[in-house]
């Protein structure tokens, strides 16, 4: 994974560019007017994977649907390979593949191969058979190509759905909750497939509620809440920006009640024993030297001092709950 920044580049002709996009759904029977997405901008380069995170109703799927041209933005513009989805939809979506409803996007009564042939014609693919065979190999669908989609496991259906999305050789791929409902093995295979697709130069936007999926696949993370983009950066940069202050400290030995009280008084919080090691947290950096001296004096063996890290889940919750608060 890289942590490189990829700022929006107005006029950029490569990859996907989302520029100040908003969507307000008008009031309809029984539903009030709703600002689903507000002023969202980002750029996804060829070969890059952007993980789009957010709670339900954050505006992720609406954003993907606007990119796919299924929902028309109220304002803002979206470019795929330099082509405006709003005014050049037919040409722009040639460079796009999308799996927005997972396995529901397929004709279940047709086989995997027949689905690829049919959607190849729909997407105007020139050499359908060659492209179909290429994707069957890439996605490991060989043994299943003659089976009806309805007979396949969910993981295989998901792979067929991705193959369908890739039939038009898109430069940008949208994946909405791609690992939802997959078992562990299928999810592992799926991640490899997604990495292979990105390596081949396809920019990918994927939404997920599974933090480990986003963490393991994404080059950059975007977090949406309340229709707005709250954070967008490489995971390391986001972690650094939202890191909790202080250090985690671990030592071996048996501190007496008096030592524990002294350590707590010196700034070591949350002291707790796990698997023979004592762990605690020091928030103030200048409290560290006296604490380390106290450990030595008490003949307690220092094992590690590390900067407190924040995992993606905590980072996500911090950003999202900060917004709610």
């Amino acid at each position: 994974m890289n942590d490189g920044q990829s700022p929006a580049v107005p006029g950029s002709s490569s990859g996907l560019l989302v520029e100040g996009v908003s969507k307000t759904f008008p009031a309809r029977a029984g539903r009030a007017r709703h600002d689903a997405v507000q002023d969202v901008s980002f750029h996804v380069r060829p070969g890059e994977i952007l993980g789009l995170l957010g709670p339900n109703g954050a505006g992720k799927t609406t954003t993907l649907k606007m990119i796919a041209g299924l929902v028309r933005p109220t304002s803002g513009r979206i470019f795929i390979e330099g082509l405006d989805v709003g005014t050049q939809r037919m040409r722009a979506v040639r460079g796009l593949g999308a799996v927005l409803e997972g396995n529901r996007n397929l004709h279940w009564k047709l086989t995997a191969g027949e689905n690829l042939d049919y959607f190849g014609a729909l997407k105007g693919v020139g050499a359908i058979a060659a492209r179909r065979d290429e994707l069957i190999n890439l996605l490991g669908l060989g043994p299943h190509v003659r089976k009806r989609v309805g007979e396949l496991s969910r993981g295989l259906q998901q792979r067929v759905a991705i193959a369908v999305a890739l039939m038009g050789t898109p430069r940008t791929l949208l994946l909405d909750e791609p690992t939802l409902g997959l078992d562990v093995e299928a999810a592992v295979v799926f991640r490899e497939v997604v990495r292979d697709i990105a390596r081949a130069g396809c920019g990918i936007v994927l939404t997920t509620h599974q933090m480990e999926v986003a963490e393991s696949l994404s080059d950059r993370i975007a977090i949406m809440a309340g229709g707005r983009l709250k954070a967008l950066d490489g995971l390391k940069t986001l972690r650094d920006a939202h890191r909790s202050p202080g250090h985690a400290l671990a030592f071996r030995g048996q501190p007496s009640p008096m030592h524990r009280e002294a350590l707590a008084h010196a700034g070591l919080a949350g002291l707790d024993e796990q698997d023979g090691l004592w762990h605690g947290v020091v928030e103030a950096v200048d409290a560290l030297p006296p604490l380390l001296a106290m450990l030595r004096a008490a003949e307690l063996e220092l094992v590690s001092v590390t900067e407190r890290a924040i995992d993606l889940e905590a980072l996500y919750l911090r950003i999202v709950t900060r917004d709610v608060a």
Partner: protein
Amino acid sequence: MNPGRLFLAELRREAILLVRYPLETVSRLVWNLGFALLIFFGFSAAVGSQASGLPGFEEGNVGRLLGLLTTYIAINGLGNAAELIAEEVQTGTLEQAALSPPPLVLVVLLRDLASYVEMLLRFALVLAIACLVTGVRLHLDMPAYVVLLTLMYLGMEGIGLMLGGAGLIAKRITTLAQFAVMLVFGLAIVPLDGLPAWARPFVTAFPFTNALEQLRAVAVGGTSLGVLWQDGRLPILLWGALAWLALGLMVFGWAERKARDLGTLNQY
């Protein structure tokens, strides 16, 4: 984007499903044939060869079979686009169609036409068997039948596209579609003399009634397409069908844009 290739892909899809589900295919054929024979012998028993009042059924055995065929195709033309939208929305495949390069209306139209080709072949078979069983003899002017039925279908498809467009926005339009079918059928079976003067030209020029009248002229009287063209009946059918189709395409296009605004295009 090549509409010809897409049409062939739709035809292939139809063919695959016909072969893959033989029980469904045979059942459909048996049902159509059984219904045709039921109507035929039912009317024969009830009114002999007298007038029945139903469109196309009033001129004896040939008319009964043609009336059945035409009515069925007209109703399918009307319902296909609406059913297709409902089915694809439910299965989720509408989304792939909507985010593919061809305009959605073209995908829907080509799929309906592929379904029409299958229906035409099925009914040719039903008609042939029915003729054998009943002893009815038709003037076998196949080009004329195909032209007249296709023009009628295109006209009815226009109305079907309007219903399909409504389906993109409102999602559940089953009752509206049933109402439209009954309205069309009702318009056709009301005796022309019983209609107000202002409504007669409309009903006469309606693709269903117009095509049916010309089909009967071909089947019973052996009238050729050339004669139908020269006496002005075929041009009326042609322009009427194209006008309904154009109106349907416009309404569907508007509904598609509206659905993209409202976000209902791929809701289910």
